[in-house]
């Protein structure tokens, strides 16, 4: 009897666990399969292809080994490669140091319930609701040399004093970064505003009672409390910087303009098109992957280290 009563729950546990196993296998299997098929396979295949030479025509038998030649070409021959790395870095820096703090500033100001805050909020959030392709087209019209808004308004639309916003290689990256910031700031603002609305007012009251001024309240109390949202924003910022593509593609209006080279653009220029260089494009994709791994690894390391003691 005793053994029976003891074994019953165990048996039930075993029965349940068989079903559980099935459910767990199914629920785990689907994501794992999706993960392998859509992420690991393409990533590893790209790495493998980056050591080959193939024009994409004919069966897989046409693929020839090419060693590290693709990487050598990128580093020492392709005049677009190093500018692209530099521009990706500049893009990331501008986003981290300017666009994102600007969005936070907007959020903090609007959160103070200034007059007409809802209107400001809508105006600043509007660009986020537009697709990047549309933003690119809007700004292309604004920057157009002879008929564009800016040059017309400031009277620089004549041939003698034209400002070549998108064509001048010293100017165009910054012009496109203005477009990108226009959207990114609104995006960050909304994320941050949601966080700020959720901050317990009691914390601010306490800070006020303790005699903290607005700046101290923000830096010492509100900002640390918002740590989870800060991490989200940092991640969003890094993602948006690394995938910088749409605006540059639209504004280049064809093969990428000198001054706007981006790794993502070079990848597609070599892989999509009439005459493709799959191996070389894959090598550039791998470079982008490795660069992406740096912030990802830092983020994962930070994240798991923080959670372990809990």
């Amino acid at each position, binding site marked *: 009897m005793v053994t029976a009563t003891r074994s019953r729950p165990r048996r039930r546990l075993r029965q349940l666990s068989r079903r559980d196993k099935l459910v767990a296998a199914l629920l785990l299997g689907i994501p794992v399969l999706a993960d392998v098929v859509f992420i690991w396979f393409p990533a590893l295949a*790209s790495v493998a292809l980056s050591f080959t030479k193939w024009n994409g025509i004919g069966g897989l038998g046409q693929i020839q080994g090419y060693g590290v030649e693709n990487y050598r070409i990128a580093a020492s021959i392709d005049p677009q490669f190093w500018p692209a790395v530099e521009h990706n870095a500049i893009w990331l820096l501008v986003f981290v140091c300017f666009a994102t703090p600007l969005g936070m500033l907007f959020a903090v100001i609007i959160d103070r319930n200034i007059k007409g805050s809802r209107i400001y909020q809508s105006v600043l959030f509007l660009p986020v609701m537009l697709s990047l392709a549309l933003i690119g087209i809007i700004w292309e019209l604004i920057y157009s040399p002879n008929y564009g808004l800016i040059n017309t308004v400031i009277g620089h639309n004549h041939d003698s004093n034209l400002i*070549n916003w998108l064509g001048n290689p010293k100017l165009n990256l910054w012009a496109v970064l203005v477009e990108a910031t226009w959207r990114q700031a609104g995006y960050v603002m909304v994320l941050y505003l949601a966080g700020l609305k959720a901050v317990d007012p009691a*914390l601010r009251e306490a800070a006020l009672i303790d005699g903290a001024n607005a700046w101290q309240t923000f830096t010492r109390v509100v900002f640390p409390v918002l740590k989870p*949202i800060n991490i989200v924003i940092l991640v969003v910022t890094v993602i948006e910087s690394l995938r910088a593509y749409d605006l540059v593609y639209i504004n280049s209006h064809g093969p990428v303009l000198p001054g706007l080279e981006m790794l993502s653009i070079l990848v597609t220029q070599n892989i999509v098109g009439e005459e493709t260089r799959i191996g070389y494009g894959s090598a550039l994709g791998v470079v982008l992957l490795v660069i992406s791994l740096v912030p990802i690894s830092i983020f994962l390391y930070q994240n798991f280290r923080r959670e372990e003691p809990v």
Partner: protein
Amino acid sequence: MAAPDLPARPGASGFPASRRSVLKGFASTLGAAALPGILAACGDSGGSDKGSSGGNSVTFGSNYSDPAPKQAFAALTQAATTSAGVNIKVNTTDHNTFQNNINSYLQGTPDDLFTWFAGYRMQFFAQQGLIANIDDVWDKIGSNFNAASQGLSKGLDGHYYFVPIYNYPWVVFYNKSTFTEKGYTIPKTWDDFMALVKKMKTDGLIPMAYADKDGWPALGTFDIINLRVNGYDYHINLMKHKVPWTDSKVTDVFNQWAELLPYCQTGSTGRIWQDAAKTLENKQAGMMFQGTNQVAAQYVTDGKDLSDLDFFPFPEINPTYGQDYMDAPTDGFCISKNAKNAAAAKKVLEYIGTAPAEATYLKTDQWDVALANNASVPTYNAIQQKSVQAIAACKSVSQFMDRDTDPGFADNVMIPAIQKFITNPSAGNIKTLQGQIEAQAKTIFTS
């Protein structure tokens, strides 16, 4: 089971789902960075089954996606249906998309017939075995075309792969009214031309409307100066990389061009060619060098006076070659290797390769011209009549840089190099660019 944790005070620890979903987002971005390679590698994504083509019907993949060519193309296919007794189902794709996907399109399940371009751009795909041999079609239509058009339709192996429909010249456009008003005359030589652009500048005109944001328009300027300075054979050898890009004759081309650049509209790397054409339309600019397929077409689109528009062939630079050559890109049709109904498709091409078929296509087209011998096209306007003469006066016509050389080389190497040249045409930069072009050409033209 413990009760689920009650949410803590809002804001204190906040956002349970965010970290995980953010990680996922990151992972998918990571995948996306690596994805394009595989998408292209899979290769056969382009062609789903686009309507079956049984016995007497064919499918026709078309990149004539703009309204005017689409209408002309519809007229052509209708006439072909009547004449050849073959039902034609047209699948139109946006032309940029069509061209970018041609590789996977032809390897998948393509339409029986498709629209394409003459030159190396066709020969490359023929060589890769993606275009069907149509020697038997040319046995019937061969006499309709002159030797130059026949040559354009052949692959590198000497067999026929292409039937032309129209071509158009790259020439210098101007407004007759401007030239009459200011008393300008048509320049025959480079010196006349330089004198004219200087005069225009002092008269407050932009001598040459110019745009190169799209990248390809300035390739035409390189082509014509190279043809004028070094001749057709040298140009074609350079396009096939039988001559190195560091050659001093290429330096001559860039130097000649650098002389003209101060008289070209500034800020061209930020301007689309349509805007440059508008400066010519508004008579703010004196001249513009581009194809009739763009400038004349833009006049029609903008509802401007096409009868005021006129052109002359690019002036002579080297007396050895005079004005013997020009870019006259030819468009036409091919049968894909994987065609389901090649027999019927050949019947269609036998009809298209005739003067009446070309005349049918050109009924609504106001800027291209027919290639067939004795094509009588009553609807030709002055520009088209002059185009026919200008092309006929050439000893040889080239296609265009992105059709005469490896298209990937033209797009990814030459376009950025020439845009950099326009921004900085100094002797030092020319030398640097030539070195960069040659180094890249060596990695592309390998086999």
